[in-house]
């Protein structure tokens, strides 16, 4: 498919046919106040832009271009998307309409408080919902994604110890941890120390005890962990941490296993982030936007970012006065559009929310039992909402080849090569919104591919065959980066001279 820069020049429909600025007054009133004056002529020449090198493309071409591009994609709306750790559940359409309600989408964030009561109420109620679900005492809805939520969590921990005049510089994470955990610690100049896993897939409690020194600020755990297994020693781990004066942070990416069943607050966690684009059904959009709410126990509330939404007798207010707050992570209040979707999702489920986790767990265990004999199972336990298999028995790079070949069977591949502690890892999370039929079909496809690897390995290595492109050369992309379009003759991109743009052509390069 060609790039948008390679289309025939065409004036966009968003330039008025008659070049008059003032089009909304009658003739006799026109220019009464010099509205058509060329104000722009006053802009000094050292500030004025000489050329704007953008293409002009007609709307019909634009719509066809992006529609055809979308048809090269795969989404939950098209089929099964079993990416472990991503919780690719169905994104309810009603939530899109709710987010688009004029009262929500057209509201300026700096409006007077009397004009934003609906949104403040939504945020306050959502905070209460998250408290109930997680067993925490307060939430900030400001972080824009899970990683930003983690950043907030680590900043809060750092501020907490600074207040207590305690010098703690280390963060303990299990060896199965997601890369964001150590990256976040590093952004706050804290050192990451990795704790190995034991033979049951739990964090090794003996090694944990050894590493839990006076300089440990935080323990960052995902529970269930990235192996899809619930940390069996979690209560003991929390006790040990708290006795040591260390805070417990929960990476809530796997919350889909726990809704209505157990609460991280009861497991001993002091802080948690939630991924609204995972557990709470907001759409992934090809890589965001997400939202990463952060919850804390009451002794940490004052560190949360400003402003806080507070309910008074008569109304909701934005409170800016807490002096211990770590500050702000982004402009205004958070990804409000995503909060609306999560709120709608929770209202839809209401008191039956538990069924989400029940069926997520059922689907995962069922799929695991269908596949356990064709692959290696690193830890033989009941899984939570996801599980990890190893295709080591099928050879080196088998996970990669299985992933590419699954595309030909009409499925999106699962997560591969993560967690790092399992070789040739396949991390599979079906979610609760998939039918038994889909799970049966997926298992059948994996079995077929396992067989193909034995009987026709070269064919599998050459997959996929049915996508718009074949297997792509990632080495070339990294060694010779080609990251943008560049016009060959920039001089032709003047504001007046529109005819020559296409003739100059362009190239793709760094």
């Amino acid at each position, binding site marked *: 498919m060609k790039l948008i820069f390679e289309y025939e020049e065409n004036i966009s429909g968003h330039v008025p046919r008659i070049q008059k600025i003032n089009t909304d007054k009658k003739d006799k009133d026109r220019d009464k106040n010099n509205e058509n004056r060329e104000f722009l002529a006053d802009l000094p020449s050292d500030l004025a832009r000489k050329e704007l090198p*953008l*293409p002009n493309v007609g709307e019909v071409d634009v719509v066809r271009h992006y529609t055809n591009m979308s048809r*090269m994609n795969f989404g939950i709306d098209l089929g099964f998307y079993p990416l472990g750790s991503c919780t690719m559940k169905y994104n309810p359409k009603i939530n899109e309409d709710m987010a688009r309600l004029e009262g929500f989408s057209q509201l300026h964030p700096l409006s007077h408080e009397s004009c934003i009561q609906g949104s403040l109420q939504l945020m306050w109620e959502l905070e209460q919902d998250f408290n109930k679900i997680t067993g925490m005492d307060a939430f900030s809805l400001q972080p824009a994604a899970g990683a930003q939520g983690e950043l907030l969590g680590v900043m809060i921990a750092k501020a907490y110890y600074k207040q207590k005049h305690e010098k703690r510089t280390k963060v303990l994470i299990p060896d199965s941890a997601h890369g964001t955990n150590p990256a976040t610690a590093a952004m706050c100049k804290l050192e990451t120390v990795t704790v190995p896993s034991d033979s049951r897939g739990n964090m090794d409690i003996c090694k944990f005890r050894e590493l839990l020194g006076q300089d440990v600020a935080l323990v960052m755990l995902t529970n269930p962990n990235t192996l899809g*297994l619930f940390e069996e020693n979690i209560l003991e781990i929390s006790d040990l941490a708290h006795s040591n004066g260390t805070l417990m942070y929960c990476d809530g990416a796997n919350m889909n296993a726990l809704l209505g069943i157990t609460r991280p607050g009861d497991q001993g966690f002091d802080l948690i982030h939630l991924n609204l684009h995972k557990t709470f059904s907001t759409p992934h959009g*090809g890589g965001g936007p997400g939202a990463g709410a952060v919850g804390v126990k009451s002794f940490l509330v004052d560190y949360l970012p400003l402003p806080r939404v507070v309910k008074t007798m008569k109304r909701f207010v934005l409170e800016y006065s807490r002096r211990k707050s770590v500050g702000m992570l*982004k402009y205004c209040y958070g990804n409000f559009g995503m909060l609306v979707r999560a709120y709608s999702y929770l209202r839809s489920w209401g008191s039956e929310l538990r069924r989400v986790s029940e069926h997520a767990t059922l689907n995962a265990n069922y799929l695991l039992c269908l596949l356990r004999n064709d692959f290696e199972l690193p830890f033989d336990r009941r899984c939570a909402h996801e599980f990890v298999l190893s295709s080591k028995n099928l050879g080196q790079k088998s996970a990669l080849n299985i992933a590419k070949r699954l595309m030909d069977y009409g499925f999106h591949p699962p997560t591969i090569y993560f967690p790092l502690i399992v070789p040739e890892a396949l991390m599979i999370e079906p979610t609760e919104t998939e039918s038994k039929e889909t799970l049966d079909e997926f298992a059948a496809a994996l079995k077929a591919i396992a067989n193909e690897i034995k009987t026709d390995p070269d064919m599998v290595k050459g997959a996929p065959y049915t996508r718009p492109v074949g297997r*792509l050369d990632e080495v070339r992309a990294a060694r010779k980066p080609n990251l943008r379009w560049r016009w060959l003759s920039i001089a032709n991109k003047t504001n007046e001279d529109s005819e020559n743009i296409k003739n100059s052509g362009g190239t793709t390069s*760094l």
Partner: protein
Amino acid sequence: MDYIPATENDKKEMLMQIGATSINDLMADLKPQISEDLAFTDPMSELELASHMKKLSQKNKILKYFIGAGAYNHYVPSAIYHLLMRGEFLTGYTPYQAEMNQGTLQAIYEFQSFICLLTGMDVANASLYDGSSALAEAVLMSASYNGRNGIFVNDGLNPQYEQVLKTYCEGADLKIVDEIDEKTACVVVQNPDFYGNLENFQYLSDRAHQFGALFVTCVVEPTSLAIVEPPGNYGADIVVGEGQSFGIPINFGGPYLGFLAVKAPLLKKIPGRVCGMTTDLHGKKGFVLTLQAREQHIRRERATSNITTNVELMAIASTIYLALMGRDGLKNVAKHCYSRAHLLQENLASTGFKPLNSKPFYNEFIMKAPLKSYEKILSKLLKKGIVGGLNLGNDNILICCTEMNTFEDIALYISIIKGTLNLK
């Protein structure tokens, strides 16, 4: 609403296959279990939910906005929404499996290209959360690049952006300083600034470079780039900004769109995702996420940033916006913004408001209302359904115009001012 397709029969069959007696049996590991219900309301059908949400949304009041300060009320062409709602764009994951999502990847490549063309820079990433956190990431990146920890911020940075910057700097042990010297990692400016002022910053970028610091420009209202000289042309090493003006509704503050673009030598240090063009095994053109070894899932504690999920759908929205508007459409928008703002400022000046901009401005400007009149004026405007601007205290107000502010609205604004001040 129930999105679970499993029937009771399916449930029985699956449990049997697993060898479990009940679902609770499967969750025996989970401790401690909650004994009581979550105390939520009854589940709502779509009909009930729609009614509930409509009522809630109507507790908000949508007015005519003469306010910006980081969120700009521009027209969003209809085609954008329709394209974004396609399940192929809306419900896919990050395109790590490139062959499954060439559409999203090509859109990212086009987005990166548009940002480079607009800002005059060499390479851009696939987006960051928003303008303020993009600025913070640029600062962290600068400090990592030259190993220094002083951050110089020029006057005129959006106060919320400054807050965010302080928060990130505190976390990363960086200091905001008063002087540019050899300990300065970067020099930060916003252009147009918080008060709308425009400046050609060649002199400041020269000064930064003299001391080996990087020059970072933050563009919070990027429609300005249609008519104003881009930062790449006055020495910027890094350009960040807020893309909300490009086809994204104001949404009560989010989700928005952070962009970041750099000059070529800084490529290996940029945070976030980057899409590159390559070929497949048959030589056919395709796209992949590339240079992933910079990112958290590979570098882990040595990554420049922990960012994972960005705001892809918003980047796609902006790409479509820029494609629909094109060179002439975007220039048209900028012309409208500029002209209406200057018209309003001129008219307000004639009623006794004092213009306070020391430099040329784009579509935002700051004025001082006649002594002690401002609270009364703002409240009168509010009663007539107009948000007159951002109250900066001391009778100072920050006012913004876009193509959405009609001449009728401007005339109404002026007549209310005149009425309140008892002028003819």
